[in-house]
């Protein structure tokens, strides 16, 4: 068992509404640094909403209202003085469906660094190589960096999205069911990558695949109907869940 780690992200009484619909109810939880935290729970329990709240991506959705606090390194994410671009740069995002930008493989990776003001060609090329290496895509694409990203296979596209997220040097990677659109082999590669990446990054992964959470997670957050039911080390939540709902979910009584 690993020692307890200081949380890098804390939420306090986080509530999210879509119009009248109350989707996240008073969630107070900490995300440990440089660990993989899995957010689990049945469909529609607010997992993705929780994830997208962390880097304020949720604000792009129409009619959404957020209350409560999110602290990143003790900084209030919703503070008007904080630059939302900074928060998003620090928390990379990997979507459910691979979503390459409408540009070349190379430009997909450099897009982030470029908008944040980097224009040194050599440095950009270095970032492209190292990030594609980290996403174990480099060998497959190094000879065709200028081809459109949309020509890659879906599995490759998702690794490209990972490389793109890494290119802006985030501290946290938010992954929203990153393997659900992929074939089993591509999914396995993403899982291996995430395990590797936790040495340097804090990974938060939303998944409705219980086995995936068991394979990957150090820390588990179980949400049910928008409420935080239980959270703690993976060992504790999976082996000795305190709550009866968690027990039932972990045993697979419902999913």
């Amino acid at each position: 068992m690993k020692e307890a780690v200081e949380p890098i992200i804390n939420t306090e009484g986080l509530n999210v509404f879509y119009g009248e619909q109350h989707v996240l109810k008073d969630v107070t939880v900490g995300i440990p640094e440089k660990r993989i935290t899995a957010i689990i729970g049945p469909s529609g329990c607010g997992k993705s909403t929780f994830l997208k709240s962390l880097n304020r991506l949720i604000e792009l959705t129409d009619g959404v209202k957020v209350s409560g606090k999110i602290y990143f390194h003790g900084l209030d994410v919703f503070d008007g003085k904080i630059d939302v671009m900074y928060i998003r740069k620090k928390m990379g995002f990997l979507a459910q469906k691979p979503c390459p930008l409408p540009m070349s493989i190379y430009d997909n990776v450099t897009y982030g660094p470029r908008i944040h003001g980097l224009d040194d060609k050599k440095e950009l090329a270095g970032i492209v190589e190292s990030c594609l290496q980290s996403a174990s895509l480099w060998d497959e694409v190094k000879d065709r960096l200028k081809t459109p990203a949309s020509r890659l296979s879906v599995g490759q596209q998702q690794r490209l999205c990972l490389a793109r997220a890494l290119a802006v040097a985030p501290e946290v990677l938010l992954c929203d069911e990153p393997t659900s659109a992929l074939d089993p082999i591509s999914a396995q590669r993403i899982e291996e990558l995430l395990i590797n990446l936790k040495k340097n990054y804090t990974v938060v992964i939303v998944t409705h695949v219980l086995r995936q959470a068991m394979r990957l997670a150090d820390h588990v957050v179980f949400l049910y109907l928008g409420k935080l039911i239980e959270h703690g080390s993976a060992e504790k939540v999976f082996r000795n869940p305190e709550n009866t709902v968690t027990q039932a979910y972990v045993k697979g009584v419902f999913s």
Partner: protein
Amino acid sequence: MDKRKLEEAFFKALMLASTLIVLGSLLAVIVAVVVRSAPALSLSMLTQTPKGGYYLGKEGGILNAIAGSLYLVGGATVLAFAISLPVALYLEEYAGRSRFAAYARLFLDVSWGVPSIVYGVFGFTIMLYLGLKASLIGGLVTVALFEIPIMVRVMDEVLRMVPLELREASYALGSTRLETAINVMVKQALPGILTALLLAFGRGIGDAASVLFTAGYSDYIPTSFSDPAATLPLAVLFQLGTPFPEVQMRAYASAAVLMIIVLSLSMGSRFLSRRLTRYVVR
């Protein structure tokens, strides 16, 4: 045959018939114009401006109107595009589903429906007020004005089709709305934006009413913005209005030229669109 299969066959036949009627009438228009214009179509028609007595059946061509139309509508389309793209991006990326955006869209839809003669009269009034004569610039601005609602609304619709995930991907990297709009939205919606340009150009070059008072007509190719400019639709109108069959034939020939311009532009832009959109994510 059982009832459902009969139903299927009947409606399929009905749809096919409708399609054929549409295609047939379009073809009929083209054939009629081409057949009637054939005797008058010649190279000199495309390369010469009207000589003395042209409208009585003597020598010359309609180069004045071809050049005038291309200058005028080309300029108008560029001007309209420069104004429409920011408007469409603003409506889509910033105003979104606000009440203001809803009213703006309604207003643009109404403007789209306003007859072009109204734009012509409006342009003419403004020009009188400013002391301008019928001129290339007058027609250009008027046509741009009437192309803008078309362009904005079409671009607005195609920008709306850009998936939210794609915008999210850009925002998640910490980009601003402007960066997302220019780098992601416009790139992804490029084929649709080209369509908007083409549609507006087609409407502009085919319109007679908006340029009648504002651009005037001239037998010469305009050499400055303040010169009056001939346009193809007016060339068709004036030649068709003469009592001479050979001049009327030239009206059909002018119409054929107009059609060829729009057609070749449309094909050219399809080719261009394929080249420009290799990065579009499908």
